[in-house]
């Protein structure tokens, strides 16, 4: 009896006080980035940490100065526990935050000093609140989180109740109903002068005559809420309701991502420095088109969701003396897998390598069999559309168009012209010839004329090419265009489009040995239109690329990233590229063969020389993954 009691007591205490941070990740989290060995990050300052986008949800707390000059070591975090950043956007609400282990609660609240304790309805759980953020502590693990109802859901409920109560459309203004528009003669209407400055009694040129005009009342009944006040109330109630749901699951029912998805639990058991879990089958639900489809074609949505289910990306990050290695598994269900399998059922085009210079700064290639993938996708999608077409005319029409195109388009010509395999290379910045206008002054009078002279400008040099079995179609079309377009000139081995690149420099097209190439590299087009020969890509890298599965990429960071002009990329793309700016070394991306349920990818990030803090490399990569996944 005593032994039983001791056993029960130990079990209870291990559950309550031996809580691990990963057990506090809500089951609604669709993306989780876990850092296993957070001792790597001890040296990272909190100010540096909060610059990452994955910390944005808690920035209001961390930007208040309480983190100034402190490192993660000062937070009271338990470095023997995992640090898990999570984000999930379901149908009704969004949940985001991070979970962590705790060794020193006093230190923790030195940093999170805006959080105030609040009453807890859950035994063994302490709660703290700051605006919309909560901290819950169970045993020696904590979660900082925020639960926000989705705008669309709040709007739907607000509108529904608003109209049911007999209210008008909230943005409707009946002022215009009383106007007889025929009274206005638009041609003779006086021009009205508008002022941007705020109108006050002292400066107004049209003061409001209070005696003549009655001021409008806020509402007929001041105790009644306006639409927006009503919406705020709904939002608050929903937030509390969803918060309770998350808390109940975590702290009463023991439901969390670990317990509800063993794929997450399995990946987390890996001892690598970092792991990640991105459930694409859930993140896709937030896509606007998918939501539209769900509303208007619910059965089609269910069928397509069936195709997309099991779409999950998991992986881990491992840090060694001079490298960070990322292994990633892209998992998918049978139907999508059958398309991917066909898509990659082809070989690399070895001829690509001839057109990549050995001193390139970076290149990538992939092999794709578009024809096979199209046939497979057709076989998967058409039965779904047929089922839907029995219920809706819209879908019958779409199916009709699809079937007509499938029957009458010359698929052989299309897919033989563009087979799917392609490559691209970047050769850094080079001077290219352009033309500029200069003012030429006459010394007698200083009158001037415009002269066009040769000039040089810096230009990023790119080459891209794709495989084709129908070079004859491309050659025929290009020859015709050269006849009718004055800027297109046919040379013996290439076609030059004058000012084709950014309206400033020549762009070249080469059709050779079943490859169609587009480049602004004069060196390739004019001097080496049949390939670089002995100066082509090294055999070692060629072999690596051939051994890789569906794709291969290589970037010499020192050469490529620093020279890549920021203004060629969008803000979001720059955010991803910034990971590697200021660093030297190389990035190599390889993939395995694609099976019915999985494709694996590896990214090896070799850095050269000394590095101060390997933790920043991991955080940079995690942030990039977060930006992509969100």
């Amino acid at each position, binding site marked *: 009896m005593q032994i039983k009691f001791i056993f029960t007591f130990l079990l209870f205490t291990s559950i309550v006080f031996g809580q691990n941070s990963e057990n506090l990740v809500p089951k609604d989290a669709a993306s989780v980035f876990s850092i296993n060995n957070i001792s790597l990050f001890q040296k990272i300052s909190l100010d540096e940490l909060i610059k990452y986008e994955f910390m944005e949800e808690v920035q209001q707390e961390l930007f208040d100065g309480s983190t100034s000059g402190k490192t993660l070591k000062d937070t009271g975090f338990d470095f023997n526990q995992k640090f898990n950043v999570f984000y999930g956007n379901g149908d009704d609400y969004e949940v985001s935050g991070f979970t962590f282990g705790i060794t020193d609660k006093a230190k923790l609240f030195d940093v999170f000093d805006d959080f105030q304790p609040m009453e807890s309805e859950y035994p063994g759980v302490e709660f703290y609140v700051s605006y919309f953020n909560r901290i819950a502590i169970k045993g020696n693990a904590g979660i900082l989180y925020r639960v926000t109802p989705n705008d669309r859901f709040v709007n739907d409920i607000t509108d529904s109740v608003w109209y049911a109560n007999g209210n008008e459309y909230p943005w409707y203004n009946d002022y215009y109903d009383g106007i007889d528009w025929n009274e206005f003669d638009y041609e003779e209407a006086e021009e009205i002068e508008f002022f941007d400055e705020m109108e006050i009694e002292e400066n107004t040129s049209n003061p409001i005559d209070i005696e003549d005009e009655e001021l409008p009342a806020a509402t007929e009944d001041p105790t009644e809420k306006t639409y927006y006040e009503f919406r705020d109330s709904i939002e608050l109630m929903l937030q509390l309701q969803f918060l309770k749901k998350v808390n109940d699951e975590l702290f009463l029912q023991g439901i969390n991502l670990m317990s509800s998805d063993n794929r997450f639990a399995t990946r987390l058991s890996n001892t690598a420095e970092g792991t990640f879990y991105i459930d694409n089958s859930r993140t896709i639900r937030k896509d606007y088109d998918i939501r539209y489809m769900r509303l208007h074609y619910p059965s089609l949505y269910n069928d397509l969701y069936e195709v997309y289910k099991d779409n999950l990306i998991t992986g881990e990050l491992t840090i060694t003396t001079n490298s960070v290695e990322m292994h990633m598994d892209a998992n998918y269900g049978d139907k999508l897998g059958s398309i991917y399998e066909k898509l990659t059922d082809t070989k690399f085009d070895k001829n690509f390598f001839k057109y990549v210079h050995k001193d390139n700064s970076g290149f990538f290639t992939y092999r794709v069999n578009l024809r096979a993938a199209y046939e497979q996708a057709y076989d998967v999608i058409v039965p779904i559309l047929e089922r839907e077409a029995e219920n809706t005319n819209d879908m019958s029409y779409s199916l009709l168009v699809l079937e007509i195109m499938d029957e009458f388009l010359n698929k052989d010509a299309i897919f033989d012209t563009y087979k799917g395999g392609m490559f691209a290379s970047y050769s850094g910045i080079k001077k290219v010839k352009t033309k500029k*206008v*200069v003012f030429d002054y006459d*010394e007698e*009078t200083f009158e001037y004329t415009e002269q066009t002279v040769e*000039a040089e*400008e810096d*230009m990023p040099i790119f080459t891209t090419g794709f495989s084709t079995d129908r070079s004859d179609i491309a050659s025929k079309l290009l020859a015709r265009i050269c006849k009718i377009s004055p800027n297109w000139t046919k040379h013996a081995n290439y076609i030059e489009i004058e000012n084709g690149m*950014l309206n400033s420099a020549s762009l070249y097209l080469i059709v050779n040995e079943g490859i169609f190439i587009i480049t602004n590299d004069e060196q390739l087009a004019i001097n080496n239109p049949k390939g670089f020969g002995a100066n082509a890509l090294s055999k070692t890298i060629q072999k690596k690329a051939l051994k890789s599965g569906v794709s291969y990429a290589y970037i010499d960071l020192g050469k490529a990233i620093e020279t890549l002009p920021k203004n060629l990329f*969008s803000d979001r793309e720059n955010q991803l590229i910034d990971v590697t700016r200021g660093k030297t070394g190389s990035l190599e991306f390889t993939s395995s063969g694609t099976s019915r349920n999985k494709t694996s990818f590896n990214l090896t990030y070799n850095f050269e020389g000394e590095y101060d803090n390997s933790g920043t490399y991991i955080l940079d990569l995690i942030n990039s993954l977060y930006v992509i996944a969100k």
Partner: protein
Amino acid sequence: MKWNLFIACVLIVFSFSSCIEILDDLTLNNDGSGTFKYSINLSSSKVKVNSLLALDSLDGKKVPSIDDISLKIKEVVSQLKESNGISNVQMESNYTDFIFKIQFDFSSLKNLQEAVVSIVKSESKGTNYKEIESRWLTFDDDKLVRSIPQITIEKANQFKKEDADLLRLGSYTSITRFERDVVSFENSDAKQAKNNRAVMLRANAYSLTQNPSLLDNTIYLVKEQ
């Protein structure tokens, strides 16, 4: 919104101004009337300007399209046409080589300066540039005093260091023409035309941002008969 667009247009001109060439050409008649021409030549930065125009935004700011720029230019031109004492306004925009030229006649230097002040003020709503009110052109019978409006320098000083460094390759040329012969001038860097009726001053665009008085000049003419 209007002001943001104006700022964006200015940014597009200056943020890639590695080889910007600015030319102002003032012809002054004996009665104080004259013609003012102003040209911006970005043809040697075509690649950069085109790549910038291909973007939606840069550093969080919207990059204006060619249509936006064209609309803004039209607004400035129509504002000039409505200014007192300003006539014969002509604008030439070359979006292939990115050369923009404007010229107009003025009845007096006062009218010219008021027109410029009016445009600057309307485009910089909410920002008070006191210096814009000061005169940077005065003509007194046989003496012309010229300087660069302070606002140009203030704007240039707001550039980021890397952008300001790019100005090192740019140039600013200022030409002043008269109906009478020039007797002398105070700026030792200035050059006199062989026909004695024009004075030219050239400065590096970056040096000008560091030392605005580089293009200051006082020109003395022969007395009017």
